[in-house]
């Protein structure tokens, strides 16, 4: 499978949010306006790419040779959590502007199941190092795309007359369902 197919598959066809249902919490929580959606999306993409490299090394150089596959979940989540911490500290020191933009989202990323999910999937598919990184990039950008689309629609929806019980999360889920239906159209794309 070529790198391009992996990227396209993670980005559109098997979009992490709309098709695989990973990362729903931030998708619902941080999609109220487009700016924070982009911030959250890019911060997540960044952590995903870094975590892709880290988890690949751990899996193939520590867990597999030592015969400890059962520590996968434990070690991956700890690595992701510490990655997020490192990224936070690094941004704080080097780029205060970026830190102000992304900072509030970073702690939320640890519990984003899209990151742990994609790391485990990468191992299951026995991707090579480069493939894993590209997979992470595609997954992160797919997450960003879904978040942006959702935020754009929700901004417009503020002015719509929605039946009272549906307001808030209810209508957001129905919109997500329609978006997911639209993404179903990518299914035959190769």
């Amino acid at each position, binding site marked *: 499978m070529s790198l391009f197919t992996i990227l396209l598959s993670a980005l559109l066809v098997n979009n992490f949010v709309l098709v695989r249902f990973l990362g729903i919490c931030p998708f619902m929580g941080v999609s109220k306006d487009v700016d924070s959606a982009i911030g959250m999306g890019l911060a997540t993409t960044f952590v995903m790419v870094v975590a892709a490299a880290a988890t690949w090394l751990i899996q193939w150089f520590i867990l597999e040779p030592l015969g400890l596959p059962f520590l996968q979940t434990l070690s991956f989540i700890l690595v992701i959590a510490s990655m997020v911490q490192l990224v936070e500290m690094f941004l704080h020191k080097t780029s205060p502007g970026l830190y102000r933009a992304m900072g509030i989202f970073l702690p939320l990323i640890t519990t984003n199941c899209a990151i742990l999910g994609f790391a485990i999937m990468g191992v299951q598919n026995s991707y*090579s190092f480069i493939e894993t990184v590209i997979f992470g990039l595609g997954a992160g950008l797919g997450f960003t795309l879904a978040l942006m689309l959702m935020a754009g629609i929700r901004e417009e929806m503020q002015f719509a007359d929605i039946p009272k019980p549906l307001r808030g999360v209810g209508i957001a889920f129905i919109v997500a369902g329609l978006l997911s239906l639209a993404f179903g159209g990518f299914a035959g794309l190769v």
Partner: protein
Amino acid sequence: MNESLRMVVVLAIIGMVSAGILSVVYGTTSVIIEENAARALESAVYEVLPGTASVEIIRRQANELRVDDPKEMREAEQETTLIYQGLDAQGNVLGYAFVGEANGYGGVIRLLVGVDEATDQILNVKVLSHSETPGLGDRIEGEGFRNRFVGKTVEDPITIGQDIDNLSGATVSATAATDAIRRGLSEALAAYRGGE
């Protein structure tokens, strides 16, 4: 006690206890997990080799181990070709079956292919596991697609667009399944016949 030391000690203890418990649980469950997987595979052999009464497992080393890269090493270990020989009630060899693997759209596609002992023709194909798109890629499980391989031998190209019709909208899944069968067939045949 120094506070930061205490933090490290507490975390280390929790981590060690957790790793200890997990290794015990893993030790007990991994045996059962492997047995289950072997049993599931064996029962699939009965499906792809009609008339089989008992199954024998033959191990063949396909490639030399490359030890420089841990990932390649794992792959090479997996290349130890396991061939399942199907015997009828009288103990005559009916045919053999092998597992083929390839990366599809959503993940690894694993298939079991049954081959006739006398003619080396494919008798049946069964998809063991896949994570292809429902409604499109998962049609590789359908009889219509699987039957396209019946009667093929290692002499045939077994390639999408040549002797195997494509599945429209599921090119990647169909190609991956076809590649898995073609590669697996030549490897299994070489390992099976070569070792006699």
